[in-house]
């Protein structure tokens, strides 16, 4: 399944690309993508892993970029 996150305050395209790769490398993430223009981050994972994966993703973003506010969209 797929979930969307909104990354408010994401203001650097270069970091967005790097962040995308970091998220993709997380355990349990099947696929992920960050759209710098719509500020949306899509995360794909198996249904049973979804909640855990989302938690990990949010944690990663918070740690790497404290200026970004992550919201569930």
């Amino acid at each position, binding site marked *: 399944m797929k979930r969307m996150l909104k990354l408010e*305050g994401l*203001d*650097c*395209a*270069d970091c967005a*690309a*790097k962040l995308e790769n970091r998220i993709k490398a997380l355990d349990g993430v099947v*696929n992920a*993508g960050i*759209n*710098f*223009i*719509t*500020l*949306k981050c*899509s995360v794909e994972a198996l249904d049973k892993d979804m909640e855990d994966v989302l938690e990990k993703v949010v944690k990663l973003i918070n740690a*790497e970029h404290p200026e970004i506010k992550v919201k569930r969209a």
Partner: protein
Amino acid sequence: MNENQKKMLGNIIISAVLFIAALIMKKMSYIYKDGELHILTGFYMALFAASYIVVGFPVLKKAFYNIRKGRVFDENFLMGVATIGAFGLREFAEGVAVMLFYTVGEFFQSMAVNKSRKAINELMDIRPDSANLKSDDGSVRTVDPYDVNIGDIIVVKPGERIPLDGQVIKGESMLDTSALTGEPVLRRASSGDNVLSGSINTDGVIDIEVTKEFSDSTASRILDMVENAASKKSASENFITKFAVVYTPLVVGAALIIAILFPLFDPGHNFLLWLSRALTFLVVSCPCALVISIPLSFFGGVGASSRLGVLVKGSNYLEALAKTEIAVFDKTGTLTEGVFEVTEIIPDEKSGILDEKGLLETAAYAEYYSSHPIALSIKKAYIRYRHENGLDESIDETRLSDIKEISGRGLNVKLDKKNVLVGNAGLMKKYSIFEKEPDTQPGTVYVAVDGQYGGCIVISDRIKKDSPYAVSELKKLGIKHTVMLTGDGINTAKSVGEEIGIDEVHAGLLPGDKLDRLEELLEKKQKDKNLVFVGDGINDAPVLARADIGIAMGGLGSDAAIEAADIVIMTDEPSKLAVGIRLARRTIKIANQNIVMALGIKILVLILAVFGIANMWWAVFADVGVTVLAIFNSMRNLNIKSYCQD
């Protein structure tokens, strides 16, 4: 302007004032050089420091943070090194100015990004975020459209967008569906009509019974598709992503070589000179211009084409579309209406046994139990004839008996005890009605009664008005090879092909043959060019999948078509293919312009910096200035009004 930008602007103004004050003091300190005003030197140094800290602190803070995370090749860090390095070379004014100018550039960049985000949002603003839910007692309240269920009644007032797909149950109005189809035409919708979310209600109030949940409704699906398109990256985007990874280390490496190795070979061994040139390199080390503008061009292209009625499911498909060489069309339902109609009724004058009415009646009765599209069209024509003449529309089945189907040829029935044959020319020959097959179109049904020929009915599939235009538009775009595939006989197919202007016609194909023909065509095309197949998406899924780009027509409401295709044309106009190709080409052009401009300016500044011609000011322009220019260039792609002129 958001909080962040306001803060940035504030910092810029304060820093600029301090910087100008420092410059004035510096000039004065020269005038009074030997005088008593030595104190001015200390004073302007303090002002420079203050000016630097105001704009530099946020940058240095980010740099420090990133280094702790192990990100050395970070723009902020490199900018910090470059400016502090300038201080080390006692070029105080330049160090401050570079940081100030860089922040100004970042500010403009942030504004430009915001502006393009806003433009994209406007383009994508086809889905309302509220719905007027009508309860059983007739009262209406505004709710979140996610909370509306199938079967609920919603009210849409004039000027509002329809939030969920449904069926009109009360009222009548003209709907503007241009956001979905790209056509500026109004459609009337009244009780019983299905309406799609994203359309604008222009005049009357209508009540709609919801048939799809919000997330499954057309507007949501279009938005999902456009947003997901960005995840299927084009080759240009992939190139930029890979390039970005090596670019910064490469430029920083070059800077190190210039700072350390060049002075060794320089007769004067001027370390400071080469250090200052190396620092200029660091300022140009961010690939930001490309990383932002290329995806923006593609996303803009996908967004703009969706507003013109062409849904592209990935940036890669948009890119591929620009390189179309062969355009293959399915005939029925794509180039033609896909609706068979009786176009001529020709009784045989020699035998005179049937008149026009009798001929149609006989054929309609004989075909009564058949569900073949040709049979349906004859029955439809018969019912319309009776209706127009005020006659009872029902068919009296008791007149029929002994129905025999003659496979692939037609039918043999008893009607009012008479022996009736209805079918193609082969059937007539088999029963020796004709001595030889007449020279007519294959879509013709012949009728014989008690062994005597009674006449024929001509059935054909109307060509879409848009089809000849579609082919001529493709020719204008330089697509020389257009092909039509059909299961029809060669005569019909040829005449349809000629009327439309198509180059190559393959007729008499079974569904499996279509795939074989496509393979042959794929062999013929040039390697780096693409073959596009346009079909209705229902019967030709394997062909859609095999083509370089599979395009389904009339996608609105057809889930199967949307699933199978790479691109969905939302109206039933084949000419939208040309619209899509134009937009795709514009997108590629803009993306290439940005790549050439950004890389060109950066490389030029790097070369000039080696020779000491370009200083840090040039470098800041090559960094943030180019980014802003590239963003503005990309935004041209969002303009859907001007697409034809490119």
